[in-house]
C-alpha cells in the first residue's frame, strides 16, 4: 500500500510539466556556476589537465602562496612636493558647483578626497534645483568613464588641437569664400559667457547660424509660451501654492519638468488637513502617476480633447469638443468639480511636446486663475531652448549643400533625430566637440574632446532670479578643451574658459571668490513679462484654435508614449549605476521595453513568463510608426497601463556610447516621435527576451508591509489606534507587545548613542536616488544584467514596489471564492493598481536573527543600535541571509573588481573607474556577506569631528548617504537618545511602525504610515 502512495511537491509535478521533470532530474534547479568561478569556460572544456596534475598544481600554488605571503610588499608613500593649503590628506573637501549633463541642471556640492571628486551632494537649499536625482548622483562616475574621448580625432586617427583648430579656421574661411553657412549646433544655451561668444561669432561671420536642440524636445511648448509671454522659456511651477495638481502624462516628479518640484511636492503632501491632492491622468504608469491619489487612464490622443472638455466645464464656454469616451467623461466631470473648488490654487500640467496640448493647459490654468499663483511666467526657466523648426531648416540647408562648416557641440542628432545622418554627408567640414566618440562624432570629419562638467568652468542663468557658476574640482583627465575656448580662438581671442567666466561674474557686480564659494548668487534680471491678466487673456483667446488642432490629432488603435527611465534622455547612457538601478515601476534593470496592458497583450498574443529560477522572459514585438519601424522590442506587461497604449523609454539602443551600454535596449528616437507620442502598429515578432528583474512578488498578499491610511481616517483618528495597530502576543504574563515577548536579554542602548532611521512612506516617491547614493558611498559593486537576472544584485538598499490587487480578503469573504483562488488572485496586481514604494535596507534589528546563526561571529551587535558586519571574519555560509526576514543581506558571489565577466559593467575594473571608490570603505572580496552599515563611516567621522571640537553631537550632524540624497526628506537619521532629535520625534509619531513587527526583531529602522488623500 505504501508503494502506491505518492506525494507531489506541487501541482507542477502532478501535471508532469517540463519544468518539474527537469527539476526532478537535477539536484539543483540551475547549474552551479563552478566554471564561472574558475574563469574561462572555453579553456576549461579544452583543458587536458588530469586529476594528478590538478593536485600537483594545487600543492604547488598553496606552497607558493604561503611563501609569498611571508614577504611583505614594499609600499611607497609619496607626499606632495608643495601641498595645497586647502587639502588635508584623509579629510574631505567640498566645492559648490553646478551640474549640467545636457538634460538636468542642479546646484550641487562635490565631495573630493585627495583631489578626486568621489560624491555628489545636494547644494545649498536657497539655490535653484538644489536636489540631486539619480543622474546627478551618478554623474561623478561619468567623469571617470574610460569610454570618454581622450584625444582629438581626425580621419579616424589621433590628432592634436593645433591641427583641429587650424582645420576649423580654414574650413570657416572657405565657407565664407564659398558663401556657405557656418553653423553651430548646440543643446540649450543659457550660459551668459557662451551667449557672448555666439554673439561675437554672429557679428564676425555674416554666414553664421546657431541652432539649439534638446534630445527630448520641448520646442512646441516653448513656442506656446513665447507666444503668450514674449519670452522663450518655461514658466515656473509653484506647487507650494497649490492644493490640487492635475497632471496629464507629465512625469513631473522624475523627468518631466526642467525644474525640480519633488521637494515642494513632498512638503505639500505632509499628512494633515490641507494636504495636496494629486490627480494623474496618463497612459503609462509613471513614477508620478504611482504617487497620485487618483489615477485616470487615457490615450495620448485624448489629452487635447480632455483639456478642451475641462475648459468648457470650468469656464462655462461652449466650444465644440470631439468625441470622448463615456467613462473618461464621467471621470473628467469629477476632476472639473475638484478643479473649480480649488480655483487659483490648482495647477494643471501636461507632458509631451504638443503645442496644442500646452496651449490648452495654459488656457485651462488661465480659466482657473492659476497663472500668477501656481503657474509663474514671471519666473521663467531658461533651461530648455531647443528649436525644432530651426533644426528642420538646418537639415534642409544641409541637404541642399548650403552648409560649409558645422560644429556640433553637445547634442547627438545622429542618434536622436531622424534624417540628420544623411544630411551631414552634404557638409564640407564638420567638427564634433563631445565627451565621447559617439554616433555623431563617428559621422563628422573630426571630433575633439570637451571636459566633463566636473573639469569645467562655466556660468549659467537658469532662471531670471539665479546665477550659477561651475568650477572644476579636478584637472582635466584628458586632452580636452571647452567649446567656448575653441570658439573664442576662432575669433582670434586666447582667453581661457576661466577668464571668460570670471569676466561674466565680475560684469554682474559679484565678488569672484564669494560667488565660487556659494556656487552662484541670487540675481534678479528683469524678464520683461506682461501682466498675469494679459497672459491669461491671451491664453483664453487662442484656445479655440488649439482645440481644433487637438481635435484633429491622429488617433489609432494603439498609441505609443515615450518616457524616460533613470537613464534619462541618453546623455549618461554609459553609466552602469543608472542601468543597475531597477526601474522604480517595473523593477527591471539594464533594458528598455514596450510596456503594454495585460488585456492588449492577451489580444495580440504577448506573454511574460517566469522561468524555473524565477527570472522573467517576455515576447518580442515590432513597432511600426508611419514609415519608420523598430524591430524585436521586448514586451513587458505593465499593470496600470491604459489599454490601447504602449510605452517605450528613450535613452537606450546606443551603438557608440561605450562598453557599458552599447547594444543595450532599442532606440526609441528612431520612431521620430518629436511630440513624445504617436500612433503605432504593434505586431508580434518571434522569440523571447530575457529580462533582469529584481522583484517577482508584485503585491503584499494582504499583509501589512506598507501600512496605508486614507487622509480622512488619519485626521479622524490621529492616534492611529484604528489604522496602526501594534501586534501583541498572549503569554503567561498576559498580553505583551512584540518587543516585550523576548527570548534574549536586551542590549544596553541607553548609555551611548542609539542610531535610528525613520522612513516616511508618504514622502518617498520611489525615485531611487538614494540607491545610487548608497552604491557610490559604500563601493557597492555593479554586477551586470546576467547576475541581476540570477537575483544576485548587490543593492544594499532596495526600493520595493507593491501594486494593490483587485482581490482583497474582505472581497473574497463576501464573494465566497475559496482559499486557493483567493491567494492566486491576491498575487495578481490589479488592472488599475495603487502603487506603494518602500525603501528597505538592513533594519539593524536589536534582536537580529542573522547574529544568532553566524557560526564565526562575523555579524554582531553594537551598543549604538547597529548590526555590524566584519567582512574579514565572514566565511560565506550565508546562514545569516537565509535567516534574515527582510532579505537585505547580499552575498558577494564573484570578485567583481577582477573577474573578466564583469569588465564591461563594473567601473572598478579599470584604473580610471577605481578613482571613484570611497577610500573610507573597504572593497569587499569575493565570498563574503555585505549589507547596509548605516554609513558607519559617516557616523564615526561625525563623532570624531565632535570630539575634535570638544562638544556634544548635534542633531542632523551625521547623515547617511541615502538620507542626504533624498530631496523629499523621506529619510531621517539620528540619535534617538538625543532629546527632541528629529528621529526621536518621528519614532514617537503615531504613524510610525516597524516592518514585520510581529517577528519581534526590534529594528532600528521604522517606517511612517502612508497617507492617501482619497476623496
Amino acid at each position, binding site marked *: 500500500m505504501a508503494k502506491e502512495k505518492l506525494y507531489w511537491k506541487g501541482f507542477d509535478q502532478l501535471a508532469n510539466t517540463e519544468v518539474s521533470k527537469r527539476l526532478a532530474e537535477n539536484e539543483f534547479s540551475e547549474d552551479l556556476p563552478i566554471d564561472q568561478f574558475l574563469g574561462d569556460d572555453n579553456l576549461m572544456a579544452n583543458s587536458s589537465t588530469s586529476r594528478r596534475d590538478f593536485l600537483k598544481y594545487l600543492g604547488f600554488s598553496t606552497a607558493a602562496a604561503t611563501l609569498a605571503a611571508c614577504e611583505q610588499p614594499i609600499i611607497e608613500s609619496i*607626499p606632495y*612636493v608643495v601641498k595645497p593649503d586647502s587639502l588635508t*590628506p*584623509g579629510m574631505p573637501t567640498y566645492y559648490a558647483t553646478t551640474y549640467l549633463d545636457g538634460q538636468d541642471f542642479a546646484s550641487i556640492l562635490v565631495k573630493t578626497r585627495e583631489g578626486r571628486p568621489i560624491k555628489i551632494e545636494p547644494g545649498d537649499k536657497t539655490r535653484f534645483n538644489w536636489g540631486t536625482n539619480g543622474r546627478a548622483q551618478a554623474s561623478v562616475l561619468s567623469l571617470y568613464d574610460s569610454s570618454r574621448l581622450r584625444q582629438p580625432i581626425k580621419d579616424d586617427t589621433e590628432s592634436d588641437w593645433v591641427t583641429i583648430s587650424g582645420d576649423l579656421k580654414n574650413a570657416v574661411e572657405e565657407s565664407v569664400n564659398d558663401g556657405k553657412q557656418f553653423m553651430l549646433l548646440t543643446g540649450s544655451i543659457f550660459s551668459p559667457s557662451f551667449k557672448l561668444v555666439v554673439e561675437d561669432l554672429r557679428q564676425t561671420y555674416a554666414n553664421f547660424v546657431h541652432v539649439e536642440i534638446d534630445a527630448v524636445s520641448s520646442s512646441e511648448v516653448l513656442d506656446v509660451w513665447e507666444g503668450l509671454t514674449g519670452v522663450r522659456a518655461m514658466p515656473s511651477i509653484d506647487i507650494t501654492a497649490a492644493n490640487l495638481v492635475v497632471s496629464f502624462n507629465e512625469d513631473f516628479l522624475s523627468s518631466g519638468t526642467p525644474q525640480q518640484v519633488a521637494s515642494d511636492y513632498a512638503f505639500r503632501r505632509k499628512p494633515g488637513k490641507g494636504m495636496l491632492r494629486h490627480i494623474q491622468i496618463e497612459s503609462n504608469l509613471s513614477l508620478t502617476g504611482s504617487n497620485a491619489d487618483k489615477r485616470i487612464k487615457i490615450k495620448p490622443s485624448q489629452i487635447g480633447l480632455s483639456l478642451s472638455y475641462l475648459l468648457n466645464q470650468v469656464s462655462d464656454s461652449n466650444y465644440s469638443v470631439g468625441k470622448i469616451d463615456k467613462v473618461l467623461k464621467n471621470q473628467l466631470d469629477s476632476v472639473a468639480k475638484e478643479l473649480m473648488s480649488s480655483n487659483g490654487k490648482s495647477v494643471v500640467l501636461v507632458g509631451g511636446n504638443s503645442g496644442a496640448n500646452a496651449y490648452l493647459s495654459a488656457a485651462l490654468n488661465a480659466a482657473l486663475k492659476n497663472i500668477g499663483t501656481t503657474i509663474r511666467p514671471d519666473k521663467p526657466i531658461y533651461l530648455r531652448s531647443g528649436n525644432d523648426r530651426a533644426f528642420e531648416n538646418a537639415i534642409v540647408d544641409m541637404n541642399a549643400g548650403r552648409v560649409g562648416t558645422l560644429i556640433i557641440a553637445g547634442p547627438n542628432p545622429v542618434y536622436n533625430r531622424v534624417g540628420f545622418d544623411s544630411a551631414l554627408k552634404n557638409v564640407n567640414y564638420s567638427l564634433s566637440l563631445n565627451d565621447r566618440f559617439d554616433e555623431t562624432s563617428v559621422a563628422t570629419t573630426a571630433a575633439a574632446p570637451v571636459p566633463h562638467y566636473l573639469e569645467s568652468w562655466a556660468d549659467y542663468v537658469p532662471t531670471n532670479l539665479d546665477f550659477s557658476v561651475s568650477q572644476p574640482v579636478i584637472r582635466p583627465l584628458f586632452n580636452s578643451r571647452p567649446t567656448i575656448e575653441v570658439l573664442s580662438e576662432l575669433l582670434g581671442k586666447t582667453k581661457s574658459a576661466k577668464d571668460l567666466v570670471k569676466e561674466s561674474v565680475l560684469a554682474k557686480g559679484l565678488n569672484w571668490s564669494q560667488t565660487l564659494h556659494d556656487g552662484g548668487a541670487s540675481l534678479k534680471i528683469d524678464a520683461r513679462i506682461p501682466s498675469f491678466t494679459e497672459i491669461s487673456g491671451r491664453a483664453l483667446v487662442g484656445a479655440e484654435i488649439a482645440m481644433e488642432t487637438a481635435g484633429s490629432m491622429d488617433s489609432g488603435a494603439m498609441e505609443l508614449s515615450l518616457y524616460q527611465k533613470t537613464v534619462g534622455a541618453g546623455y549618461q547612457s554609459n553609466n552602469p549605476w543608472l542601468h543597475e538601478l531597477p526601474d522604480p515601476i517595473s523593477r527591471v534593470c539594464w533594458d528598455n521595453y514596450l510596456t503594454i496592458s495585460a488585456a492588449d497583450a492577451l489580444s495580440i498574443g504577448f506573454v511574460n513568463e517566469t522561468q524555473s529560477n524565477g527570472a522573467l522572459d517576455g515576447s518580442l514585438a515590432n513597432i511600426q510608426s508611419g514609415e519608420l519601424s523598430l524591430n524585436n522590442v521586448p514586451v513587458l506587461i505593465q499593470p496600470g497601463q491604459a489599454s490601447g497604449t504602449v510605452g517605450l523609454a528613450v535613452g537606450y539602443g546606443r551603438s557608440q556610447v561605450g562598453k557599458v551600454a552599447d547594444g543595450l535596449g532599442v532606440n526609441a528616437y528612431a520612431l521620430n516621435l518629436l511630440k513624445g507620442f504617436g500612433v503605432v502598429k504593434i505586431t508580434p515578432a518571434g522569440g523571447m527576451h530575457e529580462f533582469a528583474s529584481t522583484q517577482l512578488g508584485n503585491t503584499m498578499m494582504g499583509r501589512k508591509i506598507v501600512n496605508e491610511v486614507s487622509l480622512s481616517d488619519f485626521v479622524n483618528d490621529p492616534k492611529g489606534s484604528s489604522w496602526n495597530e501594534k501586534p501583541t502576543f498572549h503569554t503567561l504574563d498576559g498580553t505583551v507587545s512584540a518587543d516585550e515577548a523576548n527570548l534574549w536579554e536586551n542590549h544596553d542602548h541607553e548609555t551611548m548613542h542609539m542610531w535610528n532611521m525613520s522612513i516616511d512612506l508618504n514622502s518617498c516617491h520611489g525615485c531611487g536616488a538614494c540607491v545610487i547614493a548608497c552604491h557610490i558611498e559604500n563601493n557597492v559593486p555593479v554586477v551586470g544584467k546576467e547576475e541581476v537576472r540570477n537575483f544576485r544584485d548587490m543593492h544594499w538598499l532596495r526600493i520595493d514596489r507593491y501594486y494593490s490587487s483587485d482581490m482583497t480578503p474582505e472581497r473574497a469573504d463576501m464573494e465566497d471564492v475559496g482559499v486557493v483562488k483567493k491567494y492566486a488572485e491576491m498575487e495578481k496586481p490589479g488592472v488599475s493598481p495603487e502603487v506603494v514604494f518602500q525603501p528597505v535596507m538592513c533594519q539593524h534589528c536589536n534582536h537580529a536573527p542573522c547574529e544568532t546563526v553566524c557560526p564565526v561571529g562575523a555579524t554582531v551587535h553594537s551598543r549604538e543600535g547597529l548590526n555590524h558586519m566584519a567582512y574579514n571574519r565572514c566565511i560565506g555560509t550565508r546562514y545569516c541571509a537565509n535567516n534574515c526576514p527582510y532579505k537585505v543581506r547580499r552575498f558577494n558571489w564573484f570578485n567583481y573588481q577582477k573577474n573578466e565577466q564583469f569588465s564591461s559593467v563594473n567601473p572598478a575594473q579599470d584604473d580610471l573607474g577605481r578613482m571613484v571608490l570611497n577610500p573610507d570603505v*573597504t572593497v569587499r572580496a569575493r565570498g563574503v556577506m555585505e549589507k547596509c*552599515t548605516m554609513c558607519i*563611516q559617516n557616523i*564615526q567621522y561625525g563623532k570624531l569631528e565632535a570630539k*575634535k571640537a570638544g562638544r556634544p553631537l548635534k542633531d542632523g550632524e551625521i547623515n547617511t548617504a541615502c538620507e542626504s540624497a533624498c530631496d523629499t526628506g523621506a529619510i531621517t537619521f539620528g540619535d534617538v*537618545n538625543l532629546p527632541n532629535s528629529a528621529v526621536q520625534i518621528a519614532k514617537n509619531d503615531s504613524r510610525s511602525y516597524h516592518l514585520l513587527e510581529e517577528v519581534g526583531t526590534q529594528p532600528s529602522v521604522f517606517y511612517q504610515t502612508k497617507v492617501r488623500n482619497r476623496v
Partner: protein
Amino acid sequence: MNSCRMYMRKGFSNSLLLRLLSIVLTISALSIPASAEVDVDLGKKLFKSNCASCHKLDKKLIGPALSGVTQRRSEEWLLRWIRNNAELRASGDADAKAIFEEYNGSIMTAFPALSDDDIKSILAYTDAVPAVAIPKDVPTVQPVAEPANDLFLIYVLGVFLALFIILLLRIRNTLKQINGDDSSTVIQDFNALTQWLVGNKRFMTAATIIVTVGFIHQLFWFLMAIGVEVNYQPIQPIAFSHKIHAGENQVDCNYCHTSARQSKHSGIPSTNVCMNCHMYIDGTEILNDAGLPKYAGERSPEITKIYAAIGWDAENRSYIENYEQKPVRWIRIHNLPDLVYFNHAQHVTAGGVECQTCHGPIQEMDVVYQYSELTMGWCINCHRETEVKTDNGYYAEAADGGKSINERLAAKFHDEIITVEKIGGLECGKCHY
C-alpha cells in the same frame, strides 16, 4: 625587550656621551682668552637664537659670513650696527650704507635688548670658530665592535660540552682497555643508547608528543607572525633622522605631521615643509662626533636631495622656475591591511595618546623602524586597558537638555574606570567597515 636590545645595538648611550664630550673638548680647546664678562658659550647660545636664521660663520646666507668679522670692523662700529643698524645707516655711516646695498637692501633686525657684553660674547663666538680650518679628510669614527651574540656563545658552549663528553668516553674506554675489560668505541656506545631509547615505549611516546607539540607550536607562531613586521626598518630615499629632528632639536611631531591631529593619516610632510627650516640649514654647519664639520663644509648630501626634489637653487638662494619637481618616494613602514580603518586624529586629538605609545622612542631613532606589532590583539589590548579622556566636551557636556554621556556612563559603571572597551571600543564595526 626587543626595543631594549635595539638601543644597545645602536650604541645609543655611548654615542651621546661621546658627542657631548667632544663638543665640550672642542670648544674649550679652541677658546681664546676672554674677559670675565665675555662668555663664548653664552655667545653661541645668543648667536643660535638671534643671528643664525640670517648669518652663518663661514658663508653668506641672507647676511654676510660672520667669522672674522671682528678683524674686518671695529668693535665699536659692530656694537652700534648690531644694536640698531637703521640708526647707524641714517647717521650717514658709509660702511653701513655700503653693506646695506651689497645685500640688496635686506633689512637687518635691530637688537636693542642685547647688552654690550652680550654682543661681545657673540663676537667672541664668531672669532672662536675658525672659518677656514676645515680639514678635507675628515677622520671617521671607528664603529664600536658589536658585543658577541648570546646565542653564539651558547652554541660554542654546546660544542665544548659535546667534545667534553666524547673526551670522557674515550678516557673511560682507555681505562677499560687498561683494565683489560671489553672496550667500546664512542659510536658503539651511541648505537647502544639509541637502540635502548628506540626500544623504550615510554620514551618514544613522550618524544613523539614533545616533537609534535613543539612542531605545532612553532608552526602556529610562524603563521601568526606572517605579516607582523616588527622592527621593519627599510632604507629610505633620504637618510632622515628623527633622532636629530625630534630628539636633539626637539621639533614637535605635529610640526611636520600636521594632519595627525585632524585626519586619519598622520601625513608625511610635503617637501615645502622641510624647506621652512632647510632653506637656512643646509648641513654645512653639522659637526661629527669629533667636533669637526661632518661634510667638510659642503652641503649635506641628504639635504641636497630635498633641494633636488623641490627645485631649490642653493647657490642663488631661490626656487628654480619651471622646475620639474620630483616627489620623495618614501618607503611606508607602518602598513595596516585595507580591511582596517585607523584614524590618527581619534587617537592623538580625542584620545590624547602620545605618538611614542605606538611608534616607540621615535625621538631616538636615526632610521625609523616599526616598534609595535600592529596586530588586532595589540589594538584590542590597548583598548581594554586605556582610559577614555572623558573630560572632552563630547562626553562631558549634555546636548539639548539631555544627560551627558558621562552622566549615563556613571549611572551604568558607577566608579569604575571608563576604558575604551566600555564605550564600545572592541566592536567589530568600529574599525572594520
